[in-house]
């Protein structure tokens, strides 16, 4: 039965940055598809809340506080997961962050912070989890990149470069790990509505107008793609980054209706 191919029943999945936003939606969505979810993020209270939400609705989860910019924290996340479940089937590298700054005014420290949050963290987690997956001879890694890794975004040079780095890291690690039966894929979300930016999408002539599907993305819109790439439905897919943006970057920007400020 084809729908069974999309099941994650009994799979052990780590989701980083799962305290809120897209990561939280992914963690809940994967639990809904049957996965045991290891919920990782920096903020202990948020990690606990996501894990509790999974447990309350009948799923299984493990909350681990982890700052994935640091190797020893990543090793601890992987070791705790292996200690409890003995395996890692799926790793979703979702943790990341950004702040707007003029490229000409960006400090070296600002550059380093953004690169380590968005790119180095993906490398560290993938390498550590990859070692366990090599021993299992199976595994699926899903990296949450961004359309900004494909198209330019003003005031976001380091973040855009980091996300472009994630997209190629996905390709190169896919070729490195294919002989071990491990797949590495990515998702490039478009404009996702967050509690602070809802107002941008509500009014007529708003940001939503510039998007072919005429609405901003919700964190839940990313879940289907993650489940597809994490599950056996995509066993022949590797190195691929799936764009989930409502069609935004398919159109030449000057042909899109003007965005509201």
């Amino acid at each position, binding site marked *: 039965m084809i729908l069974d191919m999309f099941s994650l029943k009994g799979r052990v999945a780590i989701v980083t940055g799962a305290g809120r936003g897209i990561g939280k939606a992914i963690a809940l969505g994967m*639990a809904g598809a049957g996965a045991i979810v290891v919920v990782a993020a920096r903020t202990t209270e948020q990690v606990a809340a996501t894990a509790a939400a999974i447990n309350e609705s009948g799923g299984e989860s493990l909350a681990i506080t982890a700052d994935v910019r640091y190797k020893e924290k990543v090793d601890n996340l992987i070791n705790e997961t292996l200690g409890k479940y003995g395996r890692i089937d799926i790793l979703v590298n979702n943790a990341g962050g950004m702040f707007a700054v003029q490229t000409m005014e960006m400090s070296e420290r600002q550059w380093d912070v953004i690169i380590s949050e968005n790119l180095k963290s993906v490398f560290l987690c993938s390498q550590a989890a990859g070692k366990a997956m090599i021993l299992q001879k199976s595994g699926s890694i899903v990296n949450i990149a961004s359309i900004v890794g494909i198209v330019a975004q003003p005031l976001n040079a380091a973040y855009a470069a980091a996300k472009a780095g994630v997209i190629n890291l996905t390709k190169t690690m896919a070729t490195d790990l294919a002989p071990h039966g491990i797949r590495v894929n990515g998702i490039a979300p478009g404009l996702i509505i967050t509690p602070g930016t809802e107002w941008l999408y509500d009014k007529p002539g708003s940001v939503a107008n510039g998007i072919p599907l005429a609405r901003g993305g919700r964190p839940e819109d990313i879940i289907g793609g993650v489940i597809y790439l994490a599950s056996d439905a995509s066993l022949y897919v590797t190195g691929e980054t799936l764009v989930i943006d409502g069609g935004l970057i398919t159109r030449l920007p000057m042909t899109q209706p003007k965005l509201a400020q």
Partner: protein
Amino acid sequence: MAKIQFSLEGKTAIVTGASRGIGKAIALAFADAGADVVVASRTIPDLEKTAEEIRLKGRHALVVKTDISRQQDIESLIEKTVKEFHSIDILVNNAAQLLLMLPSMLRDEGWDKMINTDLRSCFISSREASKVMIKNRRGSIINIGSVAGTMAVPYESAYAVAKAGLIHLTKVMAGELGHYNVRVNSIEVGMVRTKMTEGVWSNPQIAKIFEQGIPMHRISEPEEIAAVALFLASDAASYVTGASICVDGGASLAGFNPDIQGMTLPEQYRIHKESLE
């Protein structure tokens, strides 16, 4: 917990080239997921078999003999679908034709035939189906592209160009139809075990050469293409449009293939040609 829906319960799908291979796998997968399926192709006996398997799954099937290189056939396919099911929720443009040829040997008629079958037909079927979808403010069009449409494959000239056109048609139509909640996506398939590639997988020596060049060291099964088509057709992909998903075992990743580079172009052509005979 959010429950993501990959089900196609209550939806109507048209699949072209559904008599065998990828098209048949997609038609059966859609039926498995709950859709009623209109199967179209030129070969009626095979098409009837696909329809029979769909009915065994408890879904409705409609057989429409269609030569997609003929505009009136496509128009009649859409009409018959609407008459029977009152809706078209999903259109899969899968039917295609490949003539393998040295560029110097490809005649005008061969070029026209491939562009007509592999690209023009997809535009016409999408145009006709989208009229219904726009009215319903709902729809998903899935174009079966190929890695040959994103990277050059020698001797596939017009086929490769048609597939490149199809992948771009996907983006253009996604931009035009998005406001009506009609999504358009494509799948770039690598080597799949079908009639088109029989010469490759049925000959162990040739199969080995191709498999070595693919990071996953195997070719894919039609069901693996059906799975991604199901994802794109379903509500799980409701924010996915204009996208192209590559399902090729990593074949197109590295940009060059150290295993096959020692071979001269005529040698490659010979193997290619043998593989398709």
